[in-house]
């Protein structure tokens, strides 16, 4: 009689290391192996990581203090960063610089215009000293990723806004609030969604029916009037930080329903799965069934749901702030920056004010690519068994 244990090559001692490896691979390793094949998702993941890196070190990466205004550079157009510096005598050297521009007024209309000033070059260098700041509010520092060689000089790689503030620095500073509001908001809605969805799915019956009706009501509420109402209820004298937290709470109050539904659905389908029944018959306690047997199967799906919920949060914050209901100046977020680009005058005078909008686009796309890849990789056992 053929022994079934010998017909599997991976059980034999001389099996290839690769097969042995896959045999003892945990679900996270299998997920990573199948996620890695999804090129677009890996790319999206890298972009997301870069964005969070920028958010974490925003003060250092921004060339200037985002709040510093200057009446001599109102609507200053973007300048290009050049690396090769050609001298008067035709010799060249690698010296990063930008060509300066000067403000000229039209003698008839008195309109301000910027013209290239071929005489002056503003030299910049990496890791130079610039505007002083406190990293994470803790460490006083002066170094910036890019800084002018002469401390007083200013340059505008993405132009300047109506108060002469550097749009690049402001966009980078906005990354922190916009990207973190997504994380914090989703974390909050995850807690609500996990608890309510889990209870709803595991216990079923009347509790389930009740929670489901609540979710349906939440989904049926028109979001923008709800946001407007809640924002209007916020006292105007709240500080930036308080307001920020209030906004995340408002966003996650609406956002938890989707996650609760995902969690409930998984619980419902897993509750009757043979291996869960088997665990019950093994005498496993209810808590252990939930946390040891069901939760690990749900975890990968939750990560996926989260990675798809974050961009929705970012978009919601942008929309809210754009409407002037979310974060207000002096807070800097992408939405608050776009608020500046609302009127015709700004669009005509400084189309570069839309730069934060492009970043919103990049961030949301990157998250969606990442989420797509995670969703495909979320259940590694579906493919391995083929």
């Amino acid at each position, binding site marked *: 009689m053929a022994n079934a244990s010998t017909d599997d090559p991976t059980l034999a001692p001389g099996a290839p290391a690769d097969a042995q490896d896959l045999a003892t691979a945990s679900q996270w390793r299998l997920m990573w192996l199948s996620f890695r094949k999804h090129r677009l998702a890996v790319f999206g993941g890298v972009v997301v990581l870069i964005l969070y890196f920028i958010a974490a070190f925003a003060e250092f990466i921004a060339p200037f203090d985002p709040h510093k205004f200057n009446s001599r550079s109102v609507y200053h157009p973007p300048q290009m960063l050049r690396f090769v510096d050609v001298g008067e005598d035709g010799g060249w050297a690698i010296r990063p610089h930008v060509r300066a521009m000067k403000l000229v007024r039209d003698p008839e209309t008195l309109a301000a215009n910027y013209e290239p000033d071929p005489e002056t070059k503003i030299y910049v260098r990496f890791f130079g000293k610039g505007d002083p700041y406190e990293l994470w509010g803790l460490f006083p520092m002066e170094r910036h990723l890019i800084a002018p060689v002469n401390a007083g000089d200013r340059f505008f790689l993405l132009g300047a806004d109506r108060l002469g503030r550097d749009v690049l620095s402001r966009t980078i500073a906005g990354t922190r609030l916009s990207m973190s509001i997504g994380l914090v908001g989703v974390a909050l809605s995850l807690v609500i969604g996990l608890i309510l969805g889990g209870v709803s799915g595991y216990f079923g019956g009347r509790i389930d029916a009740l929670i489901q009706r609540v979710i349906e009501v939440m989904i049926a509420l028109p979001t923008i009037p709800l946001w407007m109402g809640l924002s209007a209820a916020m006292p105007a004298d709240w500080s930036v930080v308080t307001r920020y937290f209030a906004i995340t709470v408002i966003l996650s109050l609406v956002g938890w329903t989707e996650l609760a539904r995902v969690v409930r659905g998984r619980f419902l389908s897993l509750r009757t799965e043979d291996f869960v029944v088997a665990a019950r018959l093994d*005498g496993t306690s209810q808590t252990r069934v939930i946390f040891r047997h069901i939760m690990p199967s749900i975890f990968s799906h939750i990560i996926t749901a989260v990675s798809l919920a974050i961009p929705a949060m970012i978009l919601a914050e942008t929309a809210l702030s754009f409407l002037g209901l979310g974060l207000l100046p002096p807070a800097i977020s992408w939405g608050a920056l776009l608020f500046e680009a609302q009127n015709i005058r700004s669009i005509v005078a400084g189309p570069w004010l839309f730069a934060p909008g492009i970043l919103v686009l990049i961030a949301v796309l990157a998250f969606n690519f990442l989420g797509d890849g995670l969703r495909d990789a979320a259940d590694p056992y579906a493919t391995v068994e083929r």
Partner: protein
Amino acid sequence: MYDQPPALNAPVLEVRNLTIEFPTHGERFRAVDDVSLALRPGETHCVVGESGSGKSVTARAILQIVDKPGEICGGEILFRRRATQAHFPDPIDLLRYRANSGAMRDIRGKDIAMIFQEPMTSLSPVHRIGDQVGEALRLHEGLTRRQARLRSIELLNQVGIRDPDRAVDQFPFEFSGGMRQRAMIAMALSCNPSVLIADEPTTALDVTIQLEILELIKTLQASHRMAVMFITHDMGVVSHIADKITVMRNGRVLETGEASDTLRDPQHPYTQELIQKAQELDRPSDLRLDMRGRRSLGPPIITTRDVGKAFVTSRTFLGQPREVSVALKGASIHLKEGENLGIVGESGSGKTTLARCIQRVYELSSGTVDYVGRDGASVDLAPLSETELRPIWREIRTVFQDPHSSLNPRMTVGEIIAEPLRNDPNGPTGPALRDRVIELLDLVELPATAAARYPHSFSGGQRQRIAIARAIGPNPRVILADEPTSALDVALRTTVLNLLLRLQEQLGLSFIFVSHDIAVIRYFCDRIAVMKDGMIVETGDTETVCASPQHPYTQLLLSAVLRV
């Protein structure tokens, strides 16, 4: 050879040296390796093999519907289109056509039709049966809607669907499994194909329905003079309908020949094994008879009285039951110590419900389940709470049908087997637990290294061994086995059954064995209970019942068993 006058028996479709590869992880897996076979009109050619033998892939290659990422790498598929005895055209190589070309689409359905294993998923749930049967007619033969409808009714009548005028306007969900398969066959026949490919068309059906469908295919084949390629893993089916047999394993053809010759005198050792394994079932196991001779059965340990179970299928707004479906209408059985009791019945007969009621996975609607414990005291399981049931669940254990879904894919095999032991307050801990897991793995003939691995790296048979190891862990007295072999290849079934019998001898177990397959029950069980529509219609000694069945339903079940 094509210049010769058409022989009466020349093949209408010929597969020559077909090779199909699936690229995986940098290397190429050869699913079909140099396969050749010929289909002749009016002949049923059975392709036999276990899962992964490449039989389905070969069939799909003929229609060029191989699943991605499979690639046809070589060979020819020669097809004589519209061949009759008077007109015998030169063959064309189907592999010259692109998979999505018009010519290939024209051949699919019109000249070569295919029916699949699962009729529910092959029929579109949102279209009426008549529209689906008539679609090919309207597409290929240019019939109008009205003509197609009339022809559909005729076809449904032909495949034995009662009241075809009404059935033509029904949806697939209103059909039973057997009727759906009949509708699929009607669809396949609609354009009078010269070749019919049937990929395990009866595997998902109950045995009595299986027999009807096989008879239907046989009759239609004779009247249409079709060439049928019939893919199956079941030697019983093969011996029932095959004219020619091709045996495949690991993508290669091992043996091909006339059915009568091959079945009587198989040449290849693997074919011999397949036939021997199929014959081994459907008669009492020597191992079991031997064991019973040495040790007689004890007193009853489980006795059920009038166990009933109704499921609530719909509730009112306030949660009051509105509709119930009765799955079990008062079942009374008993199991003696050291005995194997078989519960046999078709899908929907309530056999699994009964097993789950005995273990009290389900709440009973009525009746009692008396369990005599090790101390001799009898306890009724029906009113117990889940906490009170836990010690009893250590003595009555379960082996599930599908070893893929019953093992948590996110736990290692060691953790899975240890789970019932660590939940036992008096169970082993630490190194003792590890030793016990290794001992259990050894009992089910798996190496100790298996403990560190995850279920996904094991085959179906090995997984079922893991599930058995988990079941015997807490030293149980009774094992409820719910179709433990039906997800396994035939060759593995007796192996697993013998393992269970050996464990019975070593550990003094009693079994309640639920199955739809009376042959498996006959091999494994001392006593049999036949179930139909939630009731036990006949019980008795297995051999007595099989030799002289009293109830008409038992007679029907036994007559549907296809013997090799």
